[in-house]
Structures are given as C-alpha cells and as structure tokens.
C-alpha cells in the first residue's frame, strides 16, 4: 500500500464537518487518510446511513465513481480535521502498467471484497449485540477513533443501545 500512497503528489486538508464529496458528484480519486477521520454515508428522505469510516492509514474512495466514472450517491464528510493524500485515477492507471503493481492492486481489491462481505453479514445480522461484537472484534480501533453516535448509526442502532452494549 505504501507504493500506492507514494504516487500521491497532492495533500489536502478538510476541517471538521466539511464535505470531501457530496451526492451526485463524480469523484474518481483514491484518498489515503494521513490523520483525522471521515465518514461515508448515504441520505434518503433526510435519514443518514453510514456505510464506512476512514481513519489513519485507511484508503477512502467512492468505489462506484472510481470504477465506472459515473456519479456516486455517497457523501464523504470529515468527522474531525483530516489530512488526505490524493491519488488520481490516472496515476493508478499508470501504476498498473507493470505486472508486480497489478498483483499488488489485486490484493488490495481482494481485501476490499472481503471487507464488504463482512459488512454485508453485519447488516444482515439480527441481534444488535452480535452486530456490535462482530465490529468490535474486527476493528477495535474504530471505537478509539470515532464518536459513539456515528458508530451507533453504522451499526444501525440507537446511541443508547450502543452504550448499554458497551457496558455489558
């Protein structure tokens, strides 16, 4: 992943609550989080649903835009002041011209598919307690980096339920 991040020639900073991306835009960049944290969410009829978080050393991307070049419905917002390395699609395309880099890139994508599968099981798991335990086991760091109310939304439960589960 270091090789990928080294492609970046641009660093941007966004302040707390500022948007990196809003619904309907086409953003084909990949971002690597240097510091801070972000949330990726969708909005339907005024209700937010968080899809993913990004914090130190995570990659953040509107994968739909990145793969298709089409608009994406995601919002990406900084939870706190965040510094990001920007890697453009073009830089990645050039990077992928060599065999070794393509193998590396496959590994990154494979990893992402596995993460998505885990997330799918999260969402389909009925018991709030189990949902909480799955995520805690998988990403204990999440609970250090992200405020409770956002984690609760990510886990599809009320903040009260989450704090009760954390205590038990």
């Amino acid at each position, binding site marked *: 992943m270091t090789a990928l991040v080294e492609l970046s020639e641009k660093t941007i900073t*966004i*302040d707390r*609550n*500022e*948007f990196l*991306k*809003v*619904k*309907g*835009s*086409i953003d084909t960049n990949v971002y690597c989080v240097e510091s801070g944290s972000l949330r990726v969410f969708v*909005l339907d009829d005024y209700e937010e649903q968080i899809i993913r978080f990004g914090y130190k050393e995570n990659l953040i991307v509107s994968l739909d835009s990145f793969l298709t070049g089409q*608009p994406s*419905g995601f*919002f990406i917002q900084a939870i706190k002041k965040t510094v990001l390395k920007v890697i453009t699609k073009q830089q990645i395309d050039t990077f992928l011209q060599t065999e070794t880099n393509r193998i590396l890139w496959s590994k990154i994508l494979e990893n992402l598919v596995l993460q998505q599968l885990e997330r799918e099981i999260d969402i389909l798991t009925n018991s709030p307690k189990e949902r909480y335990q799955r995520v805690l086991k998988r990403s204990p760091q999440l609970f250090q980096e992200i405020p409770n109310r956002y984690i609760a939304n990510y886990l599809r439960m009320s903040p009260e339920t989450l704090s009760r589960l954390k205590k038990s």
Partner: protein
Amino acid sequence: MQSEILIQSLIEQSRQIINQVEKLKVNDLQFLSWKENPNSWSILECLEHLNLYSEFYSPQMEHLIKNSKTKNEIEFKSGLLGNYFAKSMLPKEKLNKMKTFKDKNPLNANLDKTVIDKFINHQIKFVDLLSQSRNVSLNKVKVETSISSFIKLKLGDTFQFIINHNIRHLKQIERILTERKNA
C-alpha cells in the same frame, strides 16, 4: 453547454458553499449577529435571506422534477431571461447593491445559530435536486420565479441563478467578516 457538465459544476459549487458556511459555526451568536449599521445585514440575516429563497424554490423544484415526463437532454441552452437573471446575481468587483423583496428581507428577525444548520440542510437538499435533475430536461422543465408566477425560468437557469445568489451573499458575508475585524 452539456447538461452533465453544468450539473457537475453546480454540485461542486454547492459543496464549496457548504464548506464555507460550515466554517462560520465556530463563531458565537453575538459575532454572527453583528452588523455595521442598523440597516445592514448580519451574517445570520444573510443566511436567513438565502434560506427564504430555498424555502420558495426547493419544494417547487422537487415537485417539478418528480412529476416531469421530460427526458434528459445532452445539451442545455440557457434562456435569454434566465441567463440574464443568473448573471445579474453574481457580485461585481465592488459589491453592487440590489433591492430585496420585502418578503425575503430577514432584517431584525430574531435569529439564532440554527439558521446555519438550516442553510446547510437546504444545500444538501439542493445537491439532491441537482442529482435528480439528471433524469429530466433542464430545458423543458420551467420554474416559477419568486418575482411573479408568470415569469418562468428553465430548470437549468434556475439552478445557476440560485447558486449565483448564494455566491453573492457569501461574498457579502466575507465583507462583513472583514468589517467586523476592523470595527
């Protein structure tokens, strides 16, 4: 201009507007309510003025987009009047004063910091409308203006008009910030 390019540019401008206003939240109520003289607007009054416009246009545009039977068109051609209105909104080098319609004047309304959240929510709605407008014709859908229901603008021009109007008052807010520092 291509419809898609216009939509993308307006979405990006909206994003910048949201981020610019988000930064204002660090200031306290007293600061945000400060005005140079009794007849000028405070920062909150500028934002509330824009909120009043959103409350006029957003529901109407949403209704039109949802119920339109038009199809999206590759090209958008600005209307004569629409183009004029949109351009006239942009602030000139030295901010030119414009007249405000009475029902859109927030002067001395009792405002608090929720005005900022309201503004940002309106912009998020606006971005959503821009996104939805990809399914309809920016040329054929016509929006009634707040001046008169007889004066209608193309949807594409209305979007641009609203954004330019936002930009105008954000410039005014920047000026208030400078005046406040020098006061």
